[in-house]
């Protein structure tokens, strides 16, 4: 008899990191090792309250702990934000397909991210950096509402930018004070000359409206729909392609995704909603 699909693994929050006024990262220690591939997601349960899907933001190379970055957006996320170190939690997963890293080998990896969308991207970034020589380059274009809203400030404004093989530009929608970078939405720092499009893949993750316009730009620059990888945000619940909540056309985002090429989903209406 196979295991119960709905049984979570117990865990505990071992650290809480304030990232921005609305976003926190939670370091979670599961009671046994928990492996995942970058881009896969987990269902995180606050016992007795409910569960919600999140893509871990930590490197998949680390299996005894996992980081999950969460924006206060609904009931469960608000309750999680009120949690402290020592809070018992439970995890199910990992679910879905993750990023097909091996298909990116030898290519320029163009990563466009915004807001809390940098969470899955951080995991991807750490995975790419671990084998940076396999890729022609990693070109990042990240945005946030204001400088304060950037998550992972410490590494984003510091060490990540110094890495060989990585090129990074940041932008904010608006700024009042100390910011020497670009001001404007993330599409304002995209340029067709950023990468050799013929030999590139694009990864887009962020708020739906940002993903929509970034995708439109990328298509205009000449990216083929099969070269654009999107992390779709849908209402994933069971994680195993049964409960139906996350259906996007014929796909179960939880099982067939959450990473899709634009080519897979472009024929369906309202994919950004």
């Amino acid at each position, binding site marked *: 008899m196979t295991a119960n699909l709905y*049984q979570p693994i117990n865990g505990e929050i071992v650290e809480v990191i304030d990232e921005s006024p609305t976003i926190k990262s939670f370091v979670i220690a599961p009671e046994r090792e928990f492996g995942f591939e970058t881009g896969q997601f987990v269902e995180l349960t606050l016992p007795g309250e409910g569960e919600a899907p999140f893509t871990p933001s930590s490197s998949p190379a680390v299996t005894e702990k996992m980081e999950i970055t969460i924006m206060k957006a609904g009931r469960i996320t608000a309750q999680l934000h009120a949690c402290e170190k020592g809070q018992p939690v439970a995890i199910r997963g990992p679910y879905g397909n993750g990023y097909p890293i091996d298909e990116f080998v030898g290519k320029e990896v163009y990563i466009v991210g915004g807001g809390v969308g940098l969470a899955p991207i951080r995991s991807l970034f750490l995975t790419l950096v671990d084998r940076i020589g396999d890729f022609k380059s990693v070109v990042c274009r990240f945005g946030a509402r204001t400088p304060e809203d950037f998550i992972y400030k410490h590494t984003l404004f510091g060490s990540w930018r110094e890495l060989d093989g990585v090129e990074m530009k940041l932008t904010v929608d608006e700024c009042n004070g100390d910011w020497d970078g670009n001001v404007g939405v993330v599409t304002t720092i995209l340029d067709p000359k950023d990468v050799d499009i013929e030999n590139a893949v694009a990864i887009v993750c962020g708020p739906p409206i940002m993903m929509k316009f970034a995708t439109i730009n990328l298509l205009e620059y000449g990216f083929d729909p099969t070269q654009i990888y999107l992390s779709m*945000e849908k209402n994933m619940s069971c994680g*195993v392609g049964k409960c139906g909540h996350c259906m996007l056309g014929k796909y179960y985002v939880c099982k067939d995704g959450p990473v899709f090429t634009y080519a897979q989903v472009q024929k369906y209406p309202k994919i950004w909603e």
Partner: protein
Amino acid sequence: MDTVFISRLKTFLDAVAETVPLYVPRRVDEHYVCVSYDSENGKVPEFNNIRVCTPVKEFLFPLRELAAVFPEPVAPEEVAPFAVFGLKACDLRSMEILDKVFMEEEFEDTLYLVRREKMLVISSDCSDPAESCFCNILGGQSHPEEGFDLNVSAVDDGFIVQSGSSKGRRFLSAHISMFGDVPDALLAERQKNRTATHDQLEKANGAFQLRASAQEVVERGYESEVFDEQAQTCVECQACTRVCPTCHCFYLYDTKQQDYFGKMKMWDSCMRTGYAAVAGGGNPREMLGDRLRHRMMHKFSYFLERYGVEMCVGCGRCVDGEAGEVDIRVLLRKLSDELTDKGRAVAKKAK
């Protein structure tokens, strides 16, 4: 011995009930519901001429169940063997569909699996389909040919019982003394009855025949306004999804008990406004017409593409059950008509 005769249904059902708890149909007003045979206190059992009102999924995937217990996991309660009598061909097809979802390799739902394995399936021929029945439109028929352990057909002066599995054959062998042989005349009568029911369905559903497969009809009609039009008559009661024997959407929620936390699994409905909404506020199917379109696409296109069968058996429960006026047969037929009109328009243009 695969096919036998018995004159009294009660003798047969008593024998089943001696071995396992048995559920049987009982008429309540114009419908049948399933009741425990024990609770019938020796009443004459009924042979339902039509499907029971409630879907068979209730036995396999209950409205609400405890899906997991933590932090200390608890083994699920043992499911004892049980039998259900009176399932129709459409019910058996619906089980085949649910099996695809819940018994999918690598993603087996053990909650479903244990019940499925413990269930003795006793089906029967449908002899008086309701006005809403349209299994024939979707390639179904009124009598079961597979998917049962035992099947019962009413004939003059008695019943033909046929086994369809090793479980069924074992039952017949173990109770051989209560059955008699089936003369050819009775088999001919069974065939005659089946043909009559088939003809009745064909006649009743003449107006709902489709010009192409349901898949082609919904796929080519994807942009049609028919979905929005039909949705105007929907009152969002969600009854269509509850009584549907193939709809299997569910919702997981967490509970806090005195000494454990629980995850509950409960039926949900894709026709509910917030069904697909995400925490960030987005809702891909906020409009009722979009939800109806998705439901039809899921049934006749997406599910077929993934599992090789349509997710509708034409039982018509949704037509009977819903409080509004959405009729799946009308919807498909309207899309089908549009398809022909479109075809004509294109052909005309081409000329």
